[in-house]
C-alpha cells in the first residue's frame, strides 16, 4: 500500500503532498508525530518562560519571539511540508515575499508609531523630560 502508482521521490513534493512514491503510512504518521512533539515542547517552553524567574525579565519577549519563530518553522516543515525540493521553489519564493511584506508592515508600523508617540507626548511628560 506504500506505492500508489505515483513515481515521485519522497522529497520531491510540494506542501501538503503525501502521495510520493516512498511515503508509506508509517512514515507519514512519523513525520506528523515528530512535528507534533516538537511544537508541543516549544509551546510548553513558551508558557514556562512567562511564569519563570530564571530569565532576566526584559529578555522574556525576545525569548518568546525566538520560541514562536522556531515553532512556526516546525509547522512549515512538518505540517505544511515546505521543503527545498524543486517542486517547492515557487512556494518558498512566495513565502519569502510574504515575509518581506510582513516585515515592512510590522517593522514600519513600529517605527512610525514610536516616532509619533515621541512627538505627541503629553506636555506634562515632555516638561518632565526637559527638567
Amino acid at each position, binding site marked *: *500500500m506504500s506505492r500508489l502508482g505515483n513515481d515521485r521521490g519522497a522529497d520531491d513534493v510540494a506542501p*501538503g503532498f503525501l502521495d510520493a512514491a516512498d511515503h508509506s503510512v508509517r512514515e507519514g504518521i512519523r513525520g506528523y508525530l515528530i512535528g507534533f512533539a516538537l511544537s508541543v515542547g516549544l509551546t510548553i517552553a513558551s*508558557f514556562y518562560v512567562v511564569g519563570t524567574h530564571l530569565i532576566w525579565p526584559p529578555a522574556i519577549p525576545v525569548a518568546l519571539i525566538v520560541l514562536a519563530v522556531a515553532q*512556526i518553522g516546525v509547522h512549515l516543515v512538518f505540517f*505544511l511540508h515546505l521543503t527545498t525540493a524543486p517542486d517547492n521553489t515557487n512556494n518558498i519564493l512566495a513565502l519569502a515575499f510574504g515575509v518581506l511584506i510582513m516585515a515592512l508592515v510590522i517593522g514600519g508600523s513600529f517605527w512610525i*508609531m514610536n516616532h509619533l508617540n515621541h512627538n505627541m507626548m503629553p506636555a506634562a511628560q515632555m516638561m518632565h523630560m526637559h527638567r
Partner: protein
Amino acid sequence: MSTSQVIQPTGERDPYKLGHGSERGAHGDVVAHVEATGHGEGGPASKRVIVGYGFWIFLLSDIVMFSSFFAAHSVLQTATAGGPSGRELFDPSRIGIETACLLASSFTCGLSAVATEARSQLWTQLSLLVTGLLGLAFLVLEVLDFTAMVGHGAGPQRSAFLSSFFAVVGCHGLHVTAGLLWLGTMMAQVFVKGFRANIMRRLLCFNLFWHTLDIIWVALFTIVYLMGVTR
C-alpha cells in the same frame, strides 16, 4: 500493481532531481516516467502542484492581512485608556488549553492527510471528525472568554487596546469558524464522492488552511497573550 512501475531509490538515481522527465535505464530505454514538475523537459507542473501553489499564495495574502492586525495590536498594546490591561484580563492556563486544542487538531488534520493518501474512508472521516471536534472546543472556549470579558465591561469599545485585541483574535476565530464549515463540507464530499482527484485537491487545500490557522495562533498566543501578560 506491478513492480516494473516502481523506481527503487538507489544511488544511481539523480540524487538532486536535476534531470526531470523520464528515467532511463542502463540501455537508454525509458523505465519509468517521473511526474512533470514544471522544470525544463519535465513539462508543465501537475494540477495538484498548481492548485497547492495558488492556495499557498492565498494563505500568504491572508497572513499579510493578519500581520497588519498584529502591527495595530502591538502598537496599541499600552493604549488601555485607564481600562483593564492584558495582565488583568488574560489567564495563561486557559490560553494553554485553547492552544492544546488547536495544536492537537492540527496534528489530527495531518493524520487525515495520511489516511486520505491511503484512501481509507474510515480513518479519513474519523481523523477529520476529531479535528473538527477539537476545533469546535477551541472555538467554544474562545467565545466563552469573549463573553466573560464583555460581561466584565472589557468589550471592544472600552479602549484602543481592547478594540485591537478583539479585532485580531476575533478575525482568527472567524477563520476557524469558516474552517469548521469547510471541514464539514469536505467530510460530506469524501463520503458521497469518494477519493476523486478534485476531492483530493480540495482536501489538500483544507489541510494547508487548517495548518496555517495553527501557525497564526502560534503568533497570536505569543504576541497577544503571553507578551500581554508580561507587559
